């Protein structure tokens, strides 16, 4: 039954793409059906995921698709179901959002068909990745996901920059896929067959296992956006339509994490603490540099893409902790780490999708994504601003919201370091916990900037001044639903943590240290004496304290507020250009963390009448570049070019040489055959 639901989720999203094609050829087919089918696909995915998580059981199946002698093996266990749930929620939300958001594309039947077809294929691909039980099907589904999303990134291909971003994405996705194939290949060469069962049973040496781990980390890390192989993210996310960026950032990166978790925790016969250290370090670097770069961005969607790098970094870091504990035979703490990582993945899917949808709403109403061109939208788009504020609060991990709970769990995991024997680990892990604290604080600063500059203050451009609230209900409903979930899981986190606990039971064979620590209202991951967090009581306390202070201050009604012009220090004429901008807001941090960026800052002054004091005109330019472009990519690019030139030498353009090559090849092949 549950497997049937999972299949129908896949088929419904295929059908959604199919209907779009049908609409192209037969315009009488209702195009709203595309979104209805997408919503149904999301809903069945949620049901399938929840069903499996509530009644955990490994469900297996074989489909006679693909090559005749290799049928597709399908499995659906708690880990798959958990990520199915993430996909389901995101797709369900998007199905409400897309009808109005894409109304411009709907006017052109071809554009609409392309967008909907590849959206359907993309979602189906992601779901099939989760269902795959052999490396063969896994890779086919993986490619379906990658290629379909390439077309979505390239959707607005009129712009040369978009084509370039899409090509970069495709290139990195394919290189990543190659590495994943190699990783599977390494393990499979020690096993008989490509099914996951065979891979699990492989007798592989530690060296080869480590090689497979590194290949998988690079392959999946390229998709997930780990530093320094993250550069496609900030290029590709801003150019895709917003609901697609939401799906890519909120969900597709999670599918890459699923691959990493499946490969390391499930398929490889054992884990080593050294791998955990690698994950910990890579995760910490990604988290810190992700948020530092996010802070410096002016384009909202680019900023959100970098913030995804940060959050993926946090998740990988906690996964590393879990792996370290697992390798040290601390099963229960490993379960805690996995719980924290998966819960953060879930939360990130919720609030990042919400923020991307919010960015889409802002773009839809103002045609502007540059933070420095917005401002004052809280009065013009009040509903959007509240929804967006909840997203900002969740991602800044403030108490009462879901982001805080997963970060709290991550800290609790890191603080259990005393059980380890290794001195290096015992000093490394607290340092990474402090880096996590720095990341969280910087994230708060970053999202103060985002919300403050977009929604508060005075409008910085005519577009922002003329902005109006969106009238479509569905476009509000989707992010509002996600915001509601952010708040709900912030207050009652145990409702989902119970379900995630089943994942670690199946994957690691152990659950949280004490079974009764997840009561309905409070969570205490290790034991109530060590740490507990009771969000509902805090909420009640907050409401009481706020209510009492409000009541006390509003008893005498004489002191109503007086509205007056803003104090301009007596000079007169405050303009919107006097407000802090994005680069002004982040200037202190840019200066403090100057070594983390490649900063190109220029101030050009033109003097009036050749004097040295009378400034006529000042031009300020600031360009901030990612280290990894210059340090990693450009050397590789140059290397590839040099090699290509060398290889190009054999192409002389002379027909006789080519005939000679053919002859040589023929002789070589004949020799090989005769062996």
């Amino acid at each position, binding site marked *: 039954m549950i497997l049937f639901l999972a299949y129908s989720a896949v088929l419904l999203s295929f059908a959604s793409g199919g209907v779009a094609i049908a609409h192209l050829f037969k315009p009488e087919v209702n195009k709203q059906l595309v979104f209805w089918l997408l919503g149904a696909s999301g809903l069945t995915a949620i049901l399938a995921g929840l069903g499996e998580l509530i009644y955990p059981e490994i469900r297996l199946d074989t489909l006679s698709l693909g090559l005749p002698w290799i049928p597709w093996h399908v499995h659906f266990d708690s880990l798959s179901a958990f990520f199915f749930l993430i996909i389901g929620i995101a797709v369900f939300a998007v199905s409400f959002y897309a009808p109005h958001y894409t109304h411009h594309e709907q006017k052109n039947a071809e554009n609409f068909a392309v967008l909907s077809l590849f959206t359907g294929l993309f979602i189906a691909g992601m779901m099939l990745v989760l269902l795959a039980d052999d490396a063969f099907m896994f890779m086919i589904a993986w490619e379906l996901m990658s290629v379909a999303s390439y077309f979505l990134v390239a959707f607005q291909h009129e712009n040369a920059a978009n084509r370039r971003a899409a090509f970069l994405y495709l290139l990195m996705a394919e290189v990543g896929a190659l590495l994943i194939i190699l990783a599977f290949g390494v393990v499979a060469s020690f096993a008989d067959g490509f099914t996951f069962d065979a891979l699990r049973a492989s007798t592989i040496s530690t060296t080869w296992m480590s090689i497979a781990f590194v290949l998988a980390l690079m392959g999946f890390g390229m998709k997930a956006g780990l530093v320094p192989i993250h550069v496609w993210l900030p290029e590709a996310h801003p150019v895709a339509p917003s609901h697609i960026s939401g799906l890519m950032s909120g969900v597709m990166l999670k599918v890459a994490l699923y691959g990493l978790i499946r490969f390391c925790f499930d398929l490889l016969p054992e884990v080593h603490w050294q791998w955990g250290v690698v994950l910990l370090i890579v995760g910490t670097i990604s988290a810190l540099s992700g948020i530092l770069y996010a802070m410096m961005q002016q384009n909202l969607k680019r900023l959100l893409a970098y913030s995804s790098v940060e959050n993926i970094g946090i998740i990988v870091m906690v996964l590393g902790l879990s792996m370290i504990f697992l390798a040290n035979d601390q099963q229960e703490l490993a379960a805690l780490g996995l719980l924290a990582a998966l819960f953060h993945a879930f939360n990130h899917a919720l609030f990042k999708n919400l923020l991307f949808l919010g960015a889409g709403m802002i773009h839809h109403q103002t045609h502007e994504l540059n933070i420095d061109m917005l401002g004052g939208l809280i009065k013009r788009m009040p509903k959007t601003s509240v929804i967006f504020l909840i997203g900002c609060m969740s991602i800044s991990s403030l108490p009462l919201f879901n982001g805080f709970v997963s970060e709290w769990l991550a800290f609790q995991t890191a603080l259990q370091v005393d059980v380890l024997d290794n001195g290096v680990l015992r000093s490394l892990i607290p340092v990474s916990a402090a880096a996590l604290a720095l990341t969280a604080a910087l994230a708060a600063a970053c999202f103060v900037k985002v919300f403050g500059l977009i929604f*508060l203050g005075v409008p910085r451009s005519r577009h922002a001044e003329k902005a109006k609230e969106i009238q479509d209900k569905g476009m509000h409903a989707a992010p509002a639903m996600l915001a509601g979930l952010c708040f709900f899981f912030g207050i009652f986190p145990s409702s989902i943590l119970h379900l995630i606990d089943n994942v670690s039971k199946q994957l690691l064979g152990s659950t949280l240290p004490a079974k009764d620590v997840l009561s309905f209202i409070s969570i205490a991951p290790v034991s109530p004496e060590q740490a507990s967090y009771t969000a509902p009581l805090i909420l009640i306390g907050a409401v009481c304290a*706020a209510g009492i202070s409000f009541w006390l201050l509003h008893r005498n009604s004489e*002191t109503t507020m007086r*509205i007056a012009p803003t104090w301009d220090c007596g000079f007169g004429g405050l303009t919107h250009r006097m407000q802090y901008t994005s680069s002004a807001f982040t200037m202190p941090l840019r200066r403090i963390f100057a070594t983390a960026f490649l900063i190109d800052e220029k101030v050009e002054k033109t003097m009036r009448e050749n004097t040295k004091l009378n400034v006529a005109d000042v031009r300020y330019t600031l360009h901030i570049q990612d280290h990894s472009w210059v340090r990693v990519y450009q050397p590789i690019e140059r290397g590839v070019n040099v090699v290509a030139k060398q290889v190009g030498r054999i192409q002389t353009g002379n027909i006789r040489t080519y005939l000679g090559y053919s002859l040589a090849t023929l002789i070589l092949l004949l020799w090989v055959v005769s062996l």
Partner: protein
Amino acid sequence: MNWLIAILQTALFVALAPFLAGFMKFCKCRLQNRRAPSLLQPYRDLLKLTRKQPVISEDASWLFCTTPYIVFTAMVLAASVVPFIAVDLPTSAEADVIVLVGFFAFARFFLALAGLDIGTAFGGMGSSREMTISSLAEPAMLMAVFTLTMTASTTNLSGAIEHVLNEGVVLRPSFVFALFALMLVAVAETGRIPVDNPTTHLELTMIHEAMILEYSGRHLALIEWASQLKFMLYGVLISNIFFPWGIAESFGLSALGYGLLVIAGKLILLCVVLAIAETAVAKMRLFRVQEYLGFAYLLGLLGMLSHIILESTR
């Protein structure tokens, strides 16, 4: 019964916070050969502000008017979590020290947004500086706190304090480092000299004051009260974590009274030390603050490492 004591303790905490601020001012004035205002002056100021009519800029949104309540509420919640007179109260099981840091972050988030709400350069300047300093101070604080929580193997403040009490008087090098780190962070986070000057209104130097420049009337009263609460929170945190002796472990009337006397003594001592420090040093430039906080972080790290290397049982 325990809940009642917890609520009363929180109410007392909130009520006493302006008094501590007044006492701090008293110490500083006496050290600088000035005549001090009455110790009750902060209460009079707050009362005066609540009676005044608030003036709101025409560019302000609802966020500007709700922020004072949010900030105040966050500080009251923080006050309910920190063991003040007695340990082992039910409120301290609600939230641990990481949540406490979260409450501070919550208040700061909204204060910084309110600074940006009016759209003046001052507000933005204050917000930008506050977020910069706090994002450096938060890891330093957590580093110091983690040293403590790893020693006590709990992040619950009550549990950690009980652990220190049960250990008796032991000199731990890690605690010395953590104490100094936390004191440096407390100075930065409560906006005292040498990081920020609460009495200045000069655009080049102000941080906290720049953010709240547009507030008036009851809104200003709440924000002032909240920053007095924050000051006292750090004071109680430092004195009760590192010197918990005297805190009430049972809920008898005599134990609670004794606990109140002892914490008052500790806070007075801390205020005198802080006043001397503030009188002796000058405010530093804004871009020296990262070195100061980096030093605090380093102390926290040293505390952590000395715990792992010297004190761990393994």
